[in-house]
């Protein structure tokens, strides 16, 4: 499973990081630091919750199992 983030449109709500700081690392100014994350096995649920938490709706989960 992969997460893609439209990094340029991040406005620093940091709601994803409130779900998981490891999956959704922030930079020092509080914006998302990455535009793509490989989700480690077992953390799919956490990744989906983090994506859903984004008020800007710029986080997309690409589920290759389906």
């Amino acid at each position, binding site marked *: 499973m992969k997460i893609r983030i439209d990094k340029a449109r991040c406005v*620093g709500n*940091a*709601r994803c990081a*409130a779900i998981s700081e490891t999956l959704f690392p922030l930079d*020092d100014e*509080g914006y998302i630091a990455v535009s793509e994350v490989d989700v480690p096995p077992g953390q799919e649920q956490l990744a989906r919750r983090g994506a*859903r938490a984004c*008020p*800007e709706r710029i986080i997309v989960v690409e589920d290759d199992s389906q």
Partner: protein
Amino acid sequence: MSETLSPAVARPDHITDAVFYDFDMFADPAYLANPHARILDMHKSAPPIFWTPRNGGHWMFVSHAANFEASRDVEKFSSEIVPQSKIKEMMSKLPPGAPHIPQPLPINIDPPEHTAYRAPLQRAFSPKAINELKGSIRELAISLIEEMKAKGTADFVADVAEPLPVQVFLKMFGLPLERQAAYRALVKEHMENIRNHDTAAIVRRMLKLTAIMKDTILDRKANPKDDLISMLWQTRIGDRETTINDMENYCVVLFTAGLDTVVNGISLGAHHLATNPELQQQLRADPSQIPAATEEMLRRYTFTVPLRVVSKDIEFQGVNLKAGERIMLFLPGADLDAKEYPNPEVYNHKRENSVHIAFGAGPHRCLGSHLARVELQVVYEELLARLPQFSLDTSKPVSFHGGHVVGPDHVWLNW
């Protein structure tokens, strides 16, 4: 509290019946009696985007879809209520030696300048920086709540909601605590005039604020300390150094933006808790649910109404808007839209979609949202931990104010 309706202005030709609705956001009687109940009713009786003839005539964006799209489209919807070019022209005509008139930047400025002006604040208000303040915010909250508790009955707004953000502000800015009385007086004046949108009076208050802060601001330039003012002196705005005028602008925006917003947000939450004893019980039994409860209270009782101006004639979600028209981003409406949140009137902190836009969306997203969340959570935690079951004092009915920051004037509690 009853208010006089503002006179209705003439309806322009492009405003059709389908987008016309008479609503005074400062004085609608049903709105002032119970703001969020009135909003739920508006979702049934008013168009999702409408023009009202009150307060000079303006648009209200009520649906979630309209608020979300407009907040993120800074090209069509400008935050420069008075264009920066006009402000610069006005400033250049002031006599030499006239005091600098502080502007609430970066709120009232569009990208790209917005980005440069906001960047230095972004780090200071990041989740990481705010987390470091959590301990001292909790200490402040505890002392205010304990002081209130000793009284047996109290107005939560005056005793906790109002003083907390001022004290947090003084602490972050490294301002002398002995000035607290002066700041409290300014805050009081600010809160008492929450209905009064007289620009000259607002400017006078801003000048009073910068006058009390000026010596501290200048001192931190020469003698930096571990506080926000010192940090802001050391950053750059785009490619230039920070000036005293920039510093005054920053102080004014952070002082005003973080005051009545937090005051009203916490008061609405305390009001909800006071009227829902089962929720109090549930959260006391399991405080780990308080962060989720904080979010749901923000959604259920969203309280800010930011302003935009239409940049050019456009058709937006099927409605014709003309350049220069004012838009109220009615975020309290967005977060009670049944299209986005099924049964929006139901408080449920376990609802499937709990993602609200109480802090706005797009590049102007509330800079202080992380600080506000900590302040709200900590106050709810300490209130529930320290007070026994509390309820509204029915002998003192709650009255509300409308306008750009909606909330109760007082919340008298008994326990």
